């Protein structure tokens, strides 16, 4: 049937393509124009303004540091969780279900949860105070404690974002045929060798998707940081938000948006090149 009417697949995806063009490509082009124009004429003024801003370098630095700190940890934890759960027979679903709870919580709510734990009169300080470890409430989230603030935001991000990586990795692990592992065992390969030589190469596509998704999301981190650090920890999306919402300058906000898009695209390309997936294993 498809051979007789080769246009049918195209016809079927046409609505979604039209939808994307209307609601994604058009606003995208508008954003790019907004970023690189001034009063209706092309101009680099907004980009210059963005680069000259006092928070620009800090926000780039913070965003990258956070990504570098968070993504590998999340990947490692997710791999560990995935392999652990693979051995479990009964109750596997329940464990997976509990582990994915953070997925159901919005970014901002997750930030607020951690805020209630870590603010001055929060649970963490109360606990330390109760145990007699500290004499008075310490602040963990102020501009005077940048290391603690960074650590706290990283922990909150890891808590919130690991579940999605784990879901993808568990799906990948499920597709690894048992026979491969059994064959390796027969030939005397230990668990470590089996993991490095069999499991890891076979879940490459899952790893690639998980890494792309998490890295792009890490570059777009905002709500958790906003709830915990406010102005003390500028990140790229936060700056875009501030320029649009507080400063009412849509041009500079658009410049930030374009910059975030470029960084995300570059990261995706790097992953696509670095973690090669055989063509026949693509979906």
């Amino acid at each position: 049937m498809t051979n007789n009417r080769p246009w049918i697949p195209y016809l079927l995806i046409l609505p979604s393509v039209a939808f994307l063009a209307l609601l994604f490509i058009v606003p995208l082009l508008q954003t790019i124009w907004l970023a690189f124009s001034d009063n209706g004429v092309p101009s680099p003024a907004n980009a210059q303004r963005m680069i000259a801003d006092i928070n620009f370098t800090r926000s780039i630095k913070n965003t990258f540091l956070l990504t570098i700190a968070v993504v590998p940890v999340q990947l490692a934890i997710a791999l560990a969780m995935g392999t652990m759960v693979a051995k479990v027979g009964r109750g596997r679903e329940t464990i997976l279900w509990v582990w994915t709870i953070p997925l159901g919580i919005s970014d901002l709510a997750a930030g607020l949860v951690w805020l209630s734990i870590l603010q001055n009169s929060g649970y963490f300080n109360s606990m330390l105070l109760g145990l007699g470890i500290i004499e008075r409430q310490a602040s963990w989230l102020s501009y005077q404690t940048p290391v603690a603030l960074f650590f706290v935001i990283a922990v909150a991000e890891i808590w919130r974002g690991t579940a999605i990586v784990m879901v993808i990795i568990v799906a990948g692990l499920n597709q690894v045929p048992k026979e491969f592992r059994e064959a390796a065992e027969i030939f005397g390969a230990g668990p470590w060798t089996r993991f490095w030589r069999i499991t890891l190469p076979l879940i490459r596509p899952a790893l690639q998707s998980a890494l792309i998704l998490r890295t792009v999301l890490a570059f777009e981190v905002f709500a958790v940081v906003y709830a915990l650090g406010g102005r003390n920890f500028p990140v790229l999306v936060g700056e875009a938000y501030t320029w649009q919402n507080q400063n009412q300058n849509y041009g500079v906000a658009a410049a930030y948006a374009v910059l975030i898009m470029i960084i995300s695209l570059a990261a995706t390309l790097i992953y696509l090149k670095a973690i090669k997936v055989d063509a026949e294993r693509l979906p």
Partner: protein
Amino acid sequence: MKRLMSFGIVASTMLAFASPVLAQTVFVSTQLRPIEEATIVREELLQDVGDVDYVVEEPPQFAVRMEAERQAGTRTVSLVGALHGELSPLADRDTLEPLDELATKLAAGGMPQSLLDLGKLGKSSQQYIPWMQATYVMAAKKEALQYLPAGADVNALTYDQLIEWGKKMQEATGQPQIGFPAGPKGLMARYFQGYFYPSFTGGVVRTFQGADAAAGWEKLRALWAYVNPNSTNYDFMQEPLAAGEVMVAWDHIARLKNAISAAPDDYVVFPAPAGPKGRGYMPVIAGLAIPKGAPDKDGATKIIEHLASADVQLLTASRVGFFPTLNVKLPEDLDPGVALLAGAVTTTQASKDALISLLPVGLGDKGGEFNKVYMDSFQRIVLQNEPVADVLKAQGQTLAKLMTDTKAACWAPDAKSDGPCPVE
């Protein structure tokens, strides 16, 4: 039959959507947004004035909505309630109905002419009617008073005394006890424009980078040593005050009200400190305006008259803590917290060294970037410890460009200017 039925469904749906819209007067406001306050507006302040749909909107979204309706040429909003500075860009685009008749009537009813004149926004006709007013004050827990430096009067503090006070409190409690709302949603920029700059330099824009300003910033650095570092996370000071994180705070009266009303016996409320040029203070005026092309102009006029009547103004003061724009005496049985705040406002206005500083005018949609100049200076000088002179020079250039771009003339306390307000 089927066709008839679908026709019936379409017709009834259209009727259902069309009829209530016509009956209601849509009142969009950037003020009294929290759900408790909005409920008071809907259920108490707007009672007996017909069918009003009170809609609240965040200031940035408000600006977008008004501009979108203007561009589309179809108005759904009949009445807007917003701050002086938020109405100013609407007046600049000439999108507000002149309200001169109403103003004359209200002037005869006891609204001070000086307040009404603010509502002209520098134009020849009345752009908005002053609805309610507020200002910023300082509040302190009573237990903080024992640390006041000898001879200091809390109602006539100077910056040196405040620093001394902060130092004593820190030594006694082991923690910095002064708080400012320098968080993402805090009104810290208004502190610089209405309090800090006027007090130290006697101006806001003209005097931005002079020697007086530099001396002021040094003083603020000294004060900041006794300010709680969490201040850069505080949005509303009532929360840290109530939670016991700070004992002394500066903020907008509406953002202190909950803490003070909940325990009026625990607090004192007093004017902000004075610097070498006087005691700067900034009155905040919210106004009511009718957009051009409003679907229900008569209904809107009726609501303005209702909200500007003496009874409703007093009710507004006691229920939400914004003070009347009419010359009316506050009742004896006022909420004790509101009475404390009102007392501090009167003390501020009556101070011999009071120096009034108006909300910025004529900046259009650049109000946010104007605030940013002051907040960036604060971040660089106080938080990042950069040299004062360099920062003021760089930020002064940004400010000067902003004033030239917007062509905004000087406002009080800066001396009047021909053309854009210069940075000297």
